[in-house]
């Protein structure tokens, strides 16, 4: 008779490692299993690969809107009364919101690179003098045009606003002839995206959008699937620790996330000619934090979902506000205050600023840090909740 079961002659287990809090062997066993399963699930894998490509095509057309209250800074070299008039006019505009006056050129540049101001008005030293002589002084308006939809209307509004203010100021003999040219020569200088190409804004943004969607969904599904198919009972009856299971499960997903990033960057560069000014390494590092944040949400969702359908629904539940309120669909500053508050919590909002900052502005770590830490905090909180809620029993 052939025996089905093993003989029990000698112990065949390495007991020394059994009680480790984190065993690399068990962790690796999970990683291997997950990779095999991911390879077998061709359909899902192809979806994850084609999703970024499909979205690139779909979002090729941007949605325009008319944001207001764009933060504006002023570099004031002239202290004459007419320069003050301009400042005053800026303060009263609904399109531009006067944020601060800069003392030095460097200070102003840093602010625009960080994105704390979107407009920068340079008023030259000779402004009042030239104006009074009727020489049409040049005023430079520098615009952060990474999101062209956000600035188009504001630029023309600024032009009208500044000129009307001066015209009101200069009455009587100094008045400009009504039919003549505008009293000031406003020169617009669009920074980062001089041609105002929407795709420069959309394509890098898509990276964050695609990752948000897929990373939450795939983790949520991966864990609820085990529960739904009953394999969780088997997994839990083995001596694996939660950290080994969870980290082992997300490793393949991180890799998948990077494949998506690679595809989008490739398309951005090859098909859409999006400039890549900054450091790619920095972008990939920030991307890892972002990916982890969403994997952590996926884990948390999977502890709440009873089945795979619910996991997908929860992924959408998170995805919709992310895409709507992050500044991807609509310019962030065009949204009402409450929406901005929600947006500030979402990792996607910060990641969009990071991606655009690095790719288009060439920002370094110092400049993106204030956007990176909120994502890191979000990731940490979500991970703690997810791991805490991950049950070691079937209760």
């Amino acid at each position: 008779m052939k025996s089905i079961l093993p003989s029990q002659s000698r112990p065949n287990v390495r007991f020394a490692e059994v009680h480790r809090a984190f065993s690399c062997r068990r962790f690796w066993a999970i990683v291997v299993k997950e990779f095999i399963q991911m390879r077998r699930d061709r359909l899902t894998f192809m979806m994850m690969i084609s999703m970024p490509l499909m979205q690139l095509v779909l979002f090729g057309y941007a949605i325009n809107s008319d944001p207001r209250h764009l933060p504006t800074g002023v570099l004031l070299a002239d202290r004459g009364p007419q320069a003050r008039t301009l400042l005053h006019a800026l303060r009263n505009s609904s399109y531009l919101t006067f944020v601060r006056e800069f003392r030095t050129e460097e200070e102003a540049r840093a602010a625009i690179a960080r994105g704390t101001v979107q407009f920068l008005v340079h008023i030259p030293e000779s402004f009042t003098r030239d104006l009074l002589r009727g020489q049409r002084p040049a005023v430079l308006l520098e615009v952060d045009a990474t999101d062209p939809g956000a600035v188009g209307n504001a630029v023309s509004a600024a032009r009208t606003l500044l000129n009307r203010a001066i015209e009101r100021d200069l009455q009587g003999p100094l008045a400009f002839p009504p039919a003549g040219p505008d009293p000031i020569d406003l020169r617009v200088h669009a920074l980062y995206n001089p041609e105002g190409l929407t795709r420069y804004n959309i394509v890098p943004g898509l990276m964050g959008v695609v990752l948000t969607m897929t990373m939450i969904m795939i983790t949520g599904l991966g864990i609820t699937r085990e529960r739904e198919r009953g394999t969780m009972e088997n997994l839990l009856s083995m001596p694996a620790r939660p950290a080994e299971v969870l980290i082992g499960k997300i490793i393949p997903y991180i890799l998948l996330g990077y494949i998506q990033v690679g595809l989008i960057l490739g398309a951005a560069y090859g098909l859409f000619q999006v400039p890549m000014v900054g450091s790619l390494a920095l972008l990939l590092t920030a991307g890892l934090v972002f990916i982890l944040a969403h994997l952590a949400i996926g884990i948390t969702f999977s502890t709440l979902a009873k089945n795979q359908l619910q996991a997908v629904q929860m992924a959408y539940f998170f995805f919709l506000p992310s895409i709507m309120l992050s500044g991807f669909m609509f310019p962030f500053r065009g949204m009402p205050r409450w929406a901005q508050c929600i947006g500030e919590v979402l990792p996607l909002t910060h990641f969009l600023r990071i991606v655009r900052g690095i790719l288009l502005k060439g920002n370094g770590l110092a400049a993106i840090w204030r956007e990176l830490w909120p994502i890191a905090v979000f990731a940490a909180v979500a991970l703690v909740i997810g791991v805490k809620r991950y049950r070691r029993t079937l209760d």
Partner: protein
Amino acid sequence: MSDDFAIDVQGMTKRFGSLTAVDHVDLAVRAGEICGFLGPNGSGKTTFIRMLCGLLRAEEGRGTCLGYDVIRASETIKQHVGYMTQRFSFWEDLSIAENLDFVARMYFVKERRRAVRETLERLGLAERRNQLAGQLSGGWKQRLALAACMIHQPKLLLLDEPTAGVDPKARREFWEEIHRLAAQGLTFLIATHYMDEAERCHRLAFILRGRLLAQGSVADVVGQARLTTWSVAGPDLLTLAARLQRDPAVEQAVAFGNLLHVSGPDAAALERALAPFHTPPYKWRQVESGLEDVFIHFMSRAEGESS
């Protein structure tokens, strides 16, 4: 506690909301014993087994499993226990070999590849090693699951209906193996609905609605039931059965081939009830109650109590 007991638990209790699925169950199984775990559907067998290997948290209860605290040391217990789930719980999208390999890695099996290869050969699945587990037939899935939960040579095996859907030959082989392994000191707790399997166990535990009703050897359990059974041969047993069942002293009248088994808890009352039929052509003979009679007796007694 003595080292002789592989399972020694008292007062194990599990509630799901208002339902008490397992209600203060005590169970002691010696090392090297095969304990059959019987009970109707939904009586709490699976729930009890899950508590033993730390898959469900017991609300009450204490004791040891392989000498480890059953409540606090569940992580250790898992390493030494082989648990076969009632429902096939291996990964259907992994191949047979990959499943075994995964289990072997999780338990730190030495010479893993060899252990996997040997298991495949013993199972007779060596040629189909790369087939997906999900494509196996029901009985083969069962056999794979059984082999997989033994690959790390556990000392205690908790098998939840391991032979459901397995053909008779494979089942016989399985039971011969179980006895061989038990002789080497392994302990088995086997939930089953097959009475022939129950009779092959060293001891039985009978659970009903979460409560342990009887425990001991087959003879003990049959004795505890205090059931009297008569066997009768003759013509038109079906009509006889229908007539007998009207009498409250007759609990069961079940056809076994050409015989009818009539049993009841009260020997004297049963004899009085049968007396009118002790006439030719009927041939009566008192027999030992079978395990199935006892099983049904426990169930109908419980029904009588609750209604």
